[in-house]
């Protein structure tokens, strides 16, 4: 791990078939919560083993216990949130959109047990993974607040409590994802305010992953978000986003995506090397992390593994060229 260009991944991994099946069985009440939880742990162990085998530096637990990044938390905030009906996301895909029904309040740890389990399986650091308060609120219906600002601030207090629990448990990296952040530029201050509440006073290094948005227009606000590391997708835009960092000095850490998660095609090592070199034009290796563009859950297990192997091979080649190994 000398000198930088550490490799990691954004968060989710594809669920093995047996787990996808078990989740379905559980929703039909054919298997118990206990039986499902055992399979989630089995799959988590496989995700950790895969990342160790591929040779990543900072691991994720893979989110085997989560269906949807918002619903996972909403389901546990039983006093203030409910899971609503199906809403279409795109094409023939639907999700259950949560509803805020009362004053948001942290009821107990939601992610610590699974993090602890994943961390117990490896000596490499495993990231704690949270959904940001702005995204939690933006992707839920609100039948209680009628005021987005208050809802986000209360949700931020909930997520801060959760982050503090992960911190206490020993997580060295805590990632707070805000994929909804770049949707509305006029609310970037609210995104930032929410994140500053979540990350306040943590020992862990904090990260936020931003995607889908009009990144260029929101650039100034995004780089000022109160986290130690910004994680962005760059491969799927032909690395054009990096140009923004050329113009403005960026003092934090940057994790850049070098494989496109929405595409089946496995990138070549040469392509990824070229991408990393572009990253190195704007960031020193000590502050540059290499990962996929986004969570890998939309790929098959084999595609995810192949993409990660190419990524690690490319990083090794660049490290050799720079005399880092």
């Amino acid at each position, binding site marked *: 791990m000398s000198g930088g260009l550490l490799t990691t991944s954004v968060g989710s991994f594809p669920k093995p078939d047996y787990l996808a099946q078990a989740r379905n069985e559980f929703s039909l009440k054919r298997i118990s919560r206990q039986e499902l939880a055992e399979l989630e742990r089995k799959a988590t162990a496989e995700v950790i083993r895969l990342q160790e085998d591929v040779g990543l530096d900072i691991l994720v637990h893979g989110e085997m216990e989560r269906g949807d990044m918002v619903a996972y938390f909403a389901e546990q905030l039983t006093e203030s949130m409910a899971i*609503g*009906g199906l809403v*279409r996301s*795109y094409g023939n895909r639907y999700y259950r959109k949560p509803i805020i029904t009362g004053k948001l309040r942290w009821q107990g740890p939601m992610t610590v047990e699974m993090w602890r389990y994943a961390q117990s399986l490896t000596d490499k650091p495993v990231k704690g993974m949270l959904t940001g308060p702005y995204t939690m609120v933006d992707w839920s219906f609100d*039948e209680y607040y009628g005021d987005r600002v208050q809802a986000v601030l209360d949700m931020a207090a909930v997520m801060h409590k959760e982050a503090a629990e992960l911190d206490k448990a020993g997580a060295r990296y805590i990632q707070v994802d805000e994929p909804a952040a770049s949707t509305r530029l006029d609310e970037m201050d609210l995104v930032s305010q929410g994140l500053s509440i979540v990350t306040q006073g943590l020992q862990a290094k904090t990260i936020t992953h931003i995607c889908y948005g009009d990144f260029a227009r929101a650039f100034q606000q995004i780089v000022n978000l109160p986290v130690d590391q910004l994680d962005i997708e760059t491969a799927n835009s032909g690395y054009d986003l990096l140009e923004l960092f050329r113009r403005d000095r960026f003092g934090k850490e940057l994790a850049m995506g070098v494989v496109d998660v929405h595409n089946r095609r496995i990138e070549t090592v040469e392509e990824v090397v070229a991408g990393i070199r572009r990253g190195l034009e704007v960031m020193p290796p000590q502050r540059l992390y290499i990962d996929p563009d986004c969570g890998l859950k939309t790929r098959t297990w084999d595609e995810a593994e192949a993409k990660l192997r190419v990524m690690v091979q490319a990083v090794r080649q660049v490290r050799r060229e720079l005399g880092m190994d």
Partner: protein
Amino acid sequence: MLTTVVGNYPKIPNRPRPPKLRAAISRFERGEIGADELRRVEDEVTLEVIQEQVEAGVDIITDGQIRWEDDQTYLARRMDGFSIDGLIRYFDTNTYYRQPLVEGPVRWREPVLVADYEFAAKQSPVPVKALVTGPYTLAALSANHHYGSLRELVLALAVELRNEVLALERAGARIIQVNEPAILQQKEDFPLLRQALEGMMDGLRAEAHLYTWFGDIRGLYPQILELPFAAIGLDFVKGPANWDVIARQPFTKKLGLGVIDARNTKLEAVEEIVDLVRRASAVVTPDMLYVNPSCGLEYLPREAAQAKLTRMVEGVRRAREVLA
């Protein structure tokens, strides 16, 4: 004062009702059923959502756009000049559509919406309006790899989509609604929008409606009243500034009053709806009002969508009594 909807309706219900359309599309994609069988299920679901709108008491309905994967690709896939690319976020929602790519001259081949309109109109006991995505919005939400400018693409689409509008009119559509939400995001393009729509709607005898959503018309008023439409639909939920805007000058057309929040499950109270209608009545006489949700209903679960419509109709009934 009539009630209507803006466009789409949720495609699948929640348990215990079966998600027929989702299942049929999956089976179609796996090659287990053919296009005819898929069409049959689409017909069946269209009948269900017509029934739900009628049950709620809505005066003028749509076919729910059950067959549309989104407002862009349903047209783009059936015209020449487009291919369909990757997923992209629809405005500020958490809903995504596949972006049309313009790769050659756009050309209307044959009616896209006429059979859908005829089916719905024949089956519905209340009037059905036909919906067309406007040339500006279709262009703005596509990637233009062929024309030299957005302007050229918009004007070309207006010429082609005119064929669709005329075909709908010939098929008997008495209300034809053109949707142009994208203009609220790029207001400086208003002269282009005007030129495109003036050409596209020229000489049309059907009652033409222009609907917008997810914003306000600050900066477009009163010019928007000069466009060749009998009614203009505005979103007062995401565009609360519309209240002040329409109070500034007489609103000389029918107003599509989008005051029922179609992006949140929380039901408006009847009295709240009465107040909103009363507020609008200060600017537009009640007989010039269409009361409707703020946008299409697909951002809600199916049952919540119907509950919203039922409440809207209750509110409007009460408003009619109060204002009479």
